[in-house]
């Protein structure tokens, strides 16, 4: 995700003001029978992405088919169109022809937007590449709306350079956190000389786990803090319990065993390459705010960094109200009369989305500031256009998966 985002961002964007009123779109539906349509579009009255999407569906007579849109930018890169921002970007980059590639969204075959994909195809570079690389599955990069932040380096400005504060976002993934910790001896340099103190270290990373996939934690990294609490003097079991208790939003401050990849304070863009969307993203949002794509990122990361201040309220419990409870208020029992057949003893629910109303504890019960924070934190990890959707909707989306 981060790679893709940073690449989108790093591709030089030339904004040349177009003075044409209309622009021409060429559509190349890739995986249908090669069908090309050419049509004109009013540049100013282009409207929203949704309108454009529906327009394409009617033009191609494929209503209801789930498709992905891409366009070729001036460098020949195939870039996605999936929200208003990049749609407008695409329009603005057309001079005046905009080539749009429509592709059926396929579950099996991930959609890839590689760099220079079009140019390469044109120049036949693909044939020159070594075959073994070709066999390698292409780097799997999803759409930004499918992205969710899983980790970040935070508080770079306040921590010593030798330390790293990593935030792991467990919620919503099937992936295990995937690491083990152990007791060990840490060497501290004190005015009195070198001192050996007991410490807690990462002993193992599970392959395919969240911790490993972030690349931010390594074996033998010393754990200094867990969610802001110093682990000095705590037993291994205590640290384990603290981490498990915070696992929904785990912030560990480590002293990496490998000190070569430390974040340098004045964030150069290199740091963004390591997937540090949290720190990198917020820095980038100032430098290149004109890029719509990066704006999405920075919005997302901003909302997260706000939440950091109050990591407390993102573990809101799920309260399922069984509405077959005859209430004293008549309208309620009427509204829910249809589910009476579902007696509570009939089996588990709560793992299945049964027709019970699911409600979040109202934010009004919390203090105002907390409420706004929690509403920000809860659904917005995917940083997508659905950001505006209410928390209830996002929960229904997730179905039996509770990602509050």
């Amino acid at each position: 995700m981060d790679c893709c985002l940073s690449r989108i961002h790093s591709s030089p964007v030339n904004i040349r003001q177009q003075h044409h009123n209309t622009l021409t779109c060429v559509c190349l539906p890739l995986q249908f029978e090669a069908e090309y349509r050419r049509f004109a579009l009013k540049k100013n009255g282009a409207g929203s992405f949704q309108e454009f999407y529906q327009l394409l569906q009617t033009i191609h007579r494929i209503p209801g088919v789930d498709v992905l849109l891409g366009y070729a930018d001036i460098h020949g890169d195939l870039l996605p169109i999936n929200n208003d921002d990049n749609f407008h970007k695409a329009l603005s980059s057309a001079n005046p022809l905009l080539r749009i590639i429509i592709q059926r969204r396929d579950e099996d075959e991930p959609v890839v937007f590689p760099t220079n994909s079009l140019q390469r195809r044109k120049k036949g570079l693909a044939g020159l590449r070594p075959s073994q690389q070709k066999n390698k599955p292409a780097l799997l990069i999803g759409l930004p709306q499918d992205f969710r932040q899983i980790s970040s380096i935070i508080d770079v400005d306040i921590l010593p350079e030798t330390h790293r504060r990593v935030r792991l976002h467990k919620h919503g993934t099937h992936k295990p956190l995937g690491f083990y910790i152990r007791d060990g001896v840490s060497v501290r340099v004190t005015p009195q000389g070198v001192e050996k103190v007991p410490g807690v270290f990462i002993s193992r990373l599970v392959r395919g786990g969240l911790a490993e996939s972030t690349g931010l934690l390594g074996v033998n990294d010393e754990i200094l803090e867990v969610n802001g609490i110093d682990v000095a003097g705590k037993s291994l079991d205590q640290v384990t319990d603290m981490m498990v208790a915070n696992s929904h939003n785990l912030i560990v401050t480590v002293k990496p065993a490998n000190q070569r990849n430390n974040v340098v304070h004045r964030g150069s863009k290199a740091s963004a390459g390591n997937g540090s969307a949290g720190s990198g993203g917020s820095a980038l949002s100032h430098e290149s705010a004109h890029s719509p794509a990066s704006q999405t990122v920075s919005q997302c990361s901003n909302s997260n960094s706000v939440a950091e201040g109050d990591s407390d309220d993102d573990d809101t419990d799920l309260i399922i109200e069984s509405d077959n409870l005859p209430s004293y208020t008549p309208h309620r029992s009427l509204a829910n009369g249809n589910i009476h057949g579902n007696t509570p003893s009939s089996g588990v629910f709560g793992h299945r989305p049964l027709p019970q109303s699911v409600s979040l504890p109202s934010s009004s019960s919390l203090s105002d500031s907390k409420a706004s924070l929690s509403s920000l934190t809860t659904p917005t990890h995917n940083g997508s256009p659905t950001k505006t959707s209410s928390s209830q909707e996002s929960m229904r989306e997730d179905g039996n998966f509770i990602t509050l």
Partner: protein
Amino acid sequence: MFFRLRPCALDELKHTLSFPFVQTVEHGFPNQPSALAYDPKLQLMAIGTKSGAIKVYGAPGVECTGLHKETATVTQLHFFPGQGRILSLLDDNTLHLWEIEQKEQCSHLEEVCSFMLPGRSGIESTSATRVTVLLPKLSCDLLAVGTEGGGVHFLELPSFTLLDRSIFQDEIMQSVPEEYKCGKSLGPVESLQEHPQHPDKILIGYSRGLVVLWDLQIFVVCVFLLQQLESLVWVRSGNSFVSSHSDGGYMVWPVSSSTPCTHEPVTSTIPYGPFPCKAVNKILWRTTESGAPLVLFSGGMPRASYGDRHCLTILQDSQHITLDFTSRVIDFFTIHCIDRDKEFDDPLALVVLLEEELVVIDLQTAGWPTIPSPYLAPLHSSAITCSYHISNVPTKLWDRVISAGQRQCHLQTHTNWPICGGKNLAPSPKQQELLLTGHEDGTVRFWDASGVSLRPLYKLSTANIFQTDCDHNDSLTQAGEEDWPPFRKVGCFDPYSDDPRLGIQKICLCKYSGKLLVAGTAGQVIVLYLCDEKSDHMIDVATVDLLQDREGFTWKGHDRLPPKSSSVPFAPGFQPVVLVQCMPPAAVTAVTLHAEWNLIAFGTSHGFGLFDYHRRLGFHSRCTLHPNDSLAMEGPLSRVKSLKKSLRQSFRRIRKSRVSGKKRVQEANAQLAEQDAEVTPVQRRIEPRSADDSLSGVVRCLCFADTFLRDGTHHGPTMWAGTNSGCVYAYALDVPSQDKFSEQSVEALLGKEIQLMHRAPVVSIAVLDGRGNPLPEPYEVSRDLAKAPDMQGSHSVLIASEEQFKVFMLPRVSAKTKFKLTAHEGCRVRKVALVNFSSVASEDYSENGLVCLTNLGDIHVFSIPALRPQVRYDCIRKEDISGIASCVFTKTGQGFYLISPSEYERFSLSARVITKPLCQLDVDRPHDPSELSSAGVHIIIPCHGIISVSVRQSHTKPMAHTKPSRQERASLWVMLKVKVQCLKCRQLQSSLEQFSHVGFM
């Protein structure tokens, strides 16, 4: 002790409550006793333990405790009669002198000094100076010390000054006629006995069989026994003495100066002969006015047939009783007349200290019945499986329980307790407290926990309603299986459980209605009520299926306990109303009772059920199993590697009661390590709890409450259940009014289901009223015993999980406050309780708090409903898993936890409610020597040329109580005590010199 006080809320500041943490008293029987002593003058008994503790007991309520700095076994204890001084010998060969000190209202045991016998020059072997016996002279100024090397040394008391008049073996050898010498060595000194009439005469018995009588330095008489000597005792007149031997016999020897050497005893018997017998370890000979002397001895049983019995024989004339104990005899003594002018001993009582209990026999009443002990109760007569505390027990229930208990006691006299030294100063308790303990053998014992001594009140056995292999009639009353020896089973320690399924898991008692709910290991839930009449009836049995036709599960654990099909006789006391059996018969993990609604709720690892015991009808049950949870189905007995493990478990169960707390912890740790070792040695996986963790369906807590669940204006009966996976179910109950109870049935409707995001096990649930106070118990309001809860303001529910506390507003269940304990401290919640802390300053001001014990053994107090941390204390060692698991809190801020299988430690967090021994012991310590020892400087005898002087204790005492003038202040009495120790051999080298009046300042 770590202490931290956080700022309180404004209203709290007005009456700032302090939560002082004190461990007040230990209840129960000392774990692993190893020594016994009795002071006939002060009438005090002292017990020493393997962990180095000394416990002194007098009249009920009079007790004090001392703990040696060294954790070594106390091998011997001796009182200095009347002085309140105790001499202890540890197995590290050190002697310690203890004094009973009176401080305010409490008596304390304080160690005054310690001593180690110096090595004899030239002899390096430590065994030569190893102390085997001690004899403090009755005059209390001299101590004779017998050693393994055969020497007898004399120490001046209380200073422990070694006198230069030791008797060494070679001296003896020279004085003894040739034919009495058996080889080169006499063996260790086995016994030292002071002549009852002539204090200068000492009888010395050597292990190899030589007995000599010394009058100061002069050899008087000697006898030689063919058998190895075990013990010696004088006959009161001093004309003869009795020796007991390793062959199971004893002999009476005459003492006359005319025949200094003798081979011929007056009598010689082997009571349990003629086949080989075990040694008679100790013998006592007590003369009686009525004629025949009373002979009491331990051991001596025929080796082949009864060699494994723990027996003590009482013989008088033709009367012969062999007391058959269930654990080893440590020591025994008789309480008898010590007046020198009286001619006879006339023993009152025999006190036997066994490894697991104390037995007192009334020797004055015919038949020698036992006297029930008012303290030192053997809590662990069967292993304790759960405990439950009820404070403020109504007098009505109290009296009925006591009367039911009194009818249970057979073969007990109600003679006054013979050990009655000291005065109990504790005021009579303001309220009665009951402690209920559930045991492995299916019994529930009721204890009076109002005072310092935990007194047994009543014993309820649930085994008799089930068909088990064994007959459960009280076997203690039955006579022995054969006529000879005339065995009599005495004592109640019985660690062997007939059927592990009988074990009690949960107890709940309604103190107003006398309804008791007892639940056990095989899913049995028994509702009982207190009845003053005998009855004989069939038991109603109901089965509740908790699986609810869930497919794919088969229970592989134990079967349910089959109830008896015929009618069962019940003695007055708690009699069963109905037996509910859960299917599958997994151990019950939570119960609750609401006597006003006639409802019970119970939960196992599979689900929970609601039962109306009035109509004998289960009206709701719910399966809480997660589909992926396979472990829950296998039951406790057949889980992996079953045979090996269950064998190991059963051995452990047998051993459990015998192993000390410390060892058990080690064992538990080893077990934990063993489990971990199978995965990885010392690393911990960091993974959030997931929905399909094993045993996620275990029901951890249940609670009934009258509160708002449907809407904010109508309250009604509700039931709450919390599971291991952080799920809380809230039911609205439709309970018909009292008069319609038999017609209408109760209905339960699921109102809310709360899934805690962190999925930690729910430890406790409590509903708070509009003012934030816990709801009163059933009947409390209707009987005007408590203030009605505030039904105007909005109620809230407090849910305590293993990781955090949360208060939710009702009826919307919206989060109000929370405290994330684990996230902050890294400890997990083990036990919680809502406690009412009353202020010391004003009688009627009190505040509710949430008390929590964590897996690290520390106690936290939080305010409710704000959940602000108030204070934190270290309470139990974190390795002491069984101690933490056994902890139970009272409603007034006290608590109990097991420090060993047989002892509860009581602690208090409330400044107002403290139960500790307040007593007075009038010691008569001769002034002079004590003054000397405390107002002097011990001067050094260099031992290895290295001398260290350490001022151990110094305090100043003004001459007069009037304000001293400057002049006077300059000459205060300075009491210095200097302890001198040789740095090299750690030996105390001391002598005494007056050094009291010192110009100072």
